[in-house]
């Protein structure tokens, strides 16, 4: 599922923000136009892709979010919206009108939460998120990005129970953004982070909530016991890959994924289908992985990597490392 950014503007400034580099390089005034939305809907349809994720910045800051949402639904798309849940009452009401009579499985929100103790929000923001969850909790999957090993997840279980959110937590791991100083989980901290996630296994089981791991987790950091538990509680859908996600900006630029937004950025108009875009960025990923196998030295001759069971962690770690070395690698890997 490719991601479409409606705007660069955001109401938050998360320390790990993976869009930081992209947002700082772009005009905050960029808003996806109607004409470009229609073009993207066409290219998705032509590519046989019926799922579209809407991102930002904060996508609900786009003044036409409700209209765009209805339009995509009328074009038979299944839509996911990544949001902070912070939005004006008017926007919330317009989205409510747009979703009137729309089945839950056609529109899902991924609401990203930060730990309240580490990222205190204003009262107005908290109230806004509560309003959002009261209206759309049944359509909302909570998401959480880990950027330090001492994270706490209890508040997410409380939110799920209080607002009737979907019983699933999307867990991402913050990766370095080459060229930016964001907070992220280093390869050395990965084992601690994974161990901490499994400290919450009893809570996941008790509340019948499924964890979902986003990309960038290396397979070798999981014990067989961890993998068995994941298999049992996620239906065996955990993957340990690192592949092009495909993000499309409001100005119609396209890149592999946010952490890699600085390299090989193209225009979507240069491609005929999404498959062409994926092929292009797969070649780029191949070039990076030819230089270094993965985030650990042992990745180079790892059997899991050879068998494509693991990609060797997020390529952003490798790119960040390349920027600090002498420029002796293939030119594609430099900013």
């Amino acid at each position, binding site marked *: 599922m490719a991601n479409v950014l409606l705007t660069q503007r955001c109401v938050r400034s998360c320390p790990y923000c993976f869009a930081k580099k992209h947002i700082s390089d772009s005009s905050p005034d960029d808003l996806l136009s109607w*004409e470009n939305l229609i073009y993207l809907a066409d*290219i998705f*349809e032509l590519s046989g892709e019926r799922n579209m994720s809407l991102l930002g910045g904060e996508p609900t800051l786009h003044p036409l979010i*409700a*209209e765009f949402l209805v*339009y995509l639904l*009328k*074009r038979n798309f299944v839509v996911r919206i990544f949001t902070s849940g912070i939005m004006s009452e008017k926007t919330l009401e317009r989205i409510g*009108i*747009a979703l009137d009579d729309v089945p839950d499985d056609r529109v899902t929100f991924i609401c990203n939460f930060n730990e309240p103790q580490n990222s205190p929000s204003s009262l107005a923001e908290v109230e806004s998120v509560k309003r959002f969850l009261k209206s759309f909790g049944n359509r909302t999957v909570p998401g959480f990005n880990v950027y330090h090993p001492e994270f706490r997840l209890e508040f997410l279980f409380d939110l799920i129970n209080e607002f009737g959110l979907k019983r699933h937590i999307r867990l991402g791991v913050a990766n370095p953004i080459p060229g930016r100083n964001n907070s992220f989980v280093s390869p050395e901290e990965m084992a601690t982070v994974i161990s901490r996630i499994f400290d919450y296994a009893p809570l996941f089981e008790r509340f019948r909530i499924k964890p979902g791991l986003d990309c960038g987790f290396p397979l070798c950091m999981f014990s067989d016991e961890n993998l068995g538990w994941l298999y049992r509680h996620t239906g065996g859908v955990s993957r340990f890959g690192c592949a092009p996600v495909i993000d499309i900006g409001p100005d119609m630029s396209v890149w592999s994924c946010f952490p890699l937004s600085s390299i090989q950025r193209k225009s979507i108009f240069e491609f005929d289908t999404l498959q062409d875009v994926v092929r292009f960025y797969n070649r780029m990923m191949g070039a990076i992985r030819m230089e270094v196998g993965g985030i650990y030295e042992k990745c180079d001759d790892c059997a899991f990597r050879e068998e494509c069971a693991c990609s060797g962690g997020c390529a952003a770690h490798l790119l960040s490392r390349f920027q600090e070395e002498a420029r002796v690698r293939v030119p594609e890997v430099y900013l």
Partner: protein
Amino acid sequence: MSSHILVCPFRKDVFTRFEEKTFVIRSDDPNEIASIPQAVRDSNNTLHSVFLTLDTPLSRISSFEEWKGIPLSLQVPEIGDFLEFAKRLHIVQGLNLRVFLPLEKEENYLSLRILSSLCIRTTIVFGGRDIDWETLSDLVTYALLGKVPHAGIEPFHHIAETYAADRRTEIGTVYFDDPSRYLHLDDRGNVSLTSGDLSAGRFIAESISDLPDLENCPAYLERLDTWKDSLLQGADCACCEGWRICLGRFSSRRNHSPGCKRFFTEFIELVEQYQSMREKLGVPCRA
């Protein structure tokens, strides 16, 4: 009498004078639309289309459901509130409908594209305002080379389907305003060759029955030759490559040059590309 389609208001005393004729019925009352097909059938005539002109935006029309099965051309000023309109979209998509939108409103360049992408057929009404040729050029590119199936935007599709380099392309057909196919009647039965003549009170006869041999009527023949005017007057259009499509129709506009020339020249290239694509797909155009 000729086989012309007659365009007249919804006045039974006008179309009941005829039998076995084909009519376009003009109306500005949404409440009378549902009764038009039966009235035309009862008079032993055939309904080609109903042409309804309204001042209200598309989003504020509530009678779509009553118009099922009626060939309807609907001119409105704008879409209006998209969220409101979207609630009735599934009904609108099931109608035999073509929406006419005037370029007087700048937002309609986009509205035409939105409706087309939602499989609703549209027609551009050029009106009197200056045309944004560049935006129109984007729209024609979408209309003819859009990546996925979408509804036709007229007159672009009509031109693309019928254009041939060795003859003129008449776009009046999509507006029921082509004297070689349509005659216009007022509520007393007076006959005009175009809707413009009708509005200006220029008639060629007081009744169709006064025109037994239309093909030899001097006024009719003269009107069919008006395409020569811009050539005879030696206007800019006379030496423009795009003239084969526009026939000098836009020469009186303030901003017709150079945007107009660039637009129609590119349009011809797009049409040729469109026709060659259709040829390759084994669906040749009518030209």
